[in-house]
């Protein structure tokens, strides 16, 4: 019996241009998670860099006709082309970009949203002009307190547009970019071609993709994705309780966090010699150490940090371990950063599952 065409289509692999072997959380809107094995590279190759889209990607993107407007609380509104950005002084920032909802799947009770596990994160070298150089050309008035970004995402139905803002202090930081390049090549389409904001150390949602409008505001942007979206309660709330927006703040910088990329959960090892490794990052802070436990958190041992490092970038780490006997083991990793923050054993629940950073755990079985 022949199968209906739509049945065939459902069985087809999800093919995504320029992306290989990613966990498909959603093909439309496109949400791709990096599997744990790809944490092995300090710089994440583009095919393995996660994608988080809230809306449909722009149906047309043309580098020749693309424009970026700068308006609002400025003396001289601007309209810039890609070639104008290329003529400005170029700067490079290696940044670990993480979705605010990375790890949402581990919250209990569950919260709605894309059920990211470990891999809505990647580390890449972004290049382009500093945002402050563009803002300086426009001349920000004293009344300018926030900088709003709008992308070319195509909004379905009556969904509010994905517009957010960042404070002027972060916008004028020397490392905040209008990124046109990623790992030395033009930004790929799924990661924001031809230009995106790059707000280092902050949640991915701050780094607006397919950027087309910058507007300087006299206050924080008042829209769904600033309020009630992307907000954390000021105080722990009871699991299941809704967000009280009047007692909350916008999610901004990332937390201290480490993940174990190998062995993976439920791994069965035929050897007692095991290399435990992973990555650790801390937003605007530096990782100072990663500790590993092989006995469910009773004792901890310092892992070796990788030599490759940069402000805002993750550190790879590894720990060589010989299991004392066959059996089941729970491995854990715990990062500490330069601000003295230590990855907690458990995290407070929040209604949208943001900034999950509990100590990572994997359970393995060691044979004979």
């Amino acid at each position, binding site marked *: 019996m*022949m199968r209906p065409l739509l049945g065939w289509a459902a069985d087809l692999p999800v*093919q995504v241009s320029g992306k290989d072997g990613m966990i498909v*959380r959603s093909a439309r809107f496109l949400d791709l998670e990096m599997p744990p094995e790809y944490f092995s590279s300090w710089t994440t190759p583009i095919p393995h860099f996660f994608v988080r889209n809230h809306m449909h990607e722009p149906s047309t993107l043309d580098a020749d006709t693309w424009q970026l407007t700068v308006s609002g609380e400025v003396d001289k509104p601007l309209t810039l082309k890609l070639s104008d950005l290329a003529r400005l002084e170029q700067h490079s920032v290696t940044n670990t970009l993480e979705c605010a909802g990375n790890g949402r799947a581990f919250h209990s009770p569950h919260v709605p949203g894309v*059920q990211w596990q470990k891999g809505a994160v990647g580390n890449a070298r972004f290049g382009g002009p500093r945002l402050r150089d563009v803002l300086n050309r426009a001349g920000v008035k004293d009344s300018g307190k926030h900088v709003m970004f709008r992308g070319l995402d195509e909004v*379905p139905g009556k969904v509010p547009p994905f517009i957010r803002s960042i404070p002027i202090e972060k916008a004028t930081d020397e490392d905040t970019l209008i990124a046109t390049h990623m790992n030395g090549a033009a930004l790929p389409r*799924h990661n924001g071609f031809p230009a995106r904001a790059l707000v280092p150390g902050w949640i991915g949602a701050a780094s607006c993709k397919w950027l087309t409008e910058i507007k300087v505001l006299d206050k924080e942007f008042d829209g769904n994705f600033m309020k009630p979206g992307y907000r954390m309660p000021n105080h722990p709330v009871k699991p*299941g309780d809704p967000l009280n927006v009047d007692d909350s703040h916008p999610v901004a910088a990332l937390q201290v966090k480490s993940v174990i990329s190998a062995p993976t959960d439920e791994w069965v090892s035929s050897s007692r010699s095991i290399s435990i490794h992973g990555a650790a990052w801390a937003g605007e802070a530096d990782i100072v150490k990663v500790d590993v436990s092989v006995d469910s958190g009773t004792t901890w041992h310092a892992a070796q940090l990788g030599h490759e490092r940069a402000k805002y970038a993750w550190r790879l780490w590894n720990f060589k371990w010989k299991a004392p006997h066959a059996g089941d083991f729970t491995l854990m990793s715990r990062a500490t950063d330069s601000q003295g923050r230590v990855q907690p054993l458990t995290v407070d629940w929040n209604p949208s599952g943001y900034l999950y950073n509990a100590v990572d755990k994997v359970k393995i079985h060691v044979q004979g």
Partner: protein
Amino acid sequence: MCKVSGGQLVMVGLLVASLSPLLPRLQAQSPDLPPGPIRDKVTTACTECHESRIILQQRLGKGAWTKEVDKMIKWGAVVDAADRDAFIEYLSTNFPPDKPAELMPRSAPGKRQ
């Protein structure tokens, strides 16, 4: 193993050719939602904007599903008022908190941009 005649292949070829503008979307075709009397309406209302995997991966109680359905109606999902409760019942029955997590596929190597 089924046998397919040359004529059938030509017909399938013509059908595929006629649908070729839709192929990028078809390649991202989602799994079906679970059976139920309201399934077709849920599929139509929800997948107008996003694919079914977004639903398949949720694990929520009835209260949380109620908030999601009402939010989506506010954001443009076309749901007959008479069907709202059936939507919530269907979603909370099929995607409750204690159901094991959905396994997601890996993306196949795609054409470079």
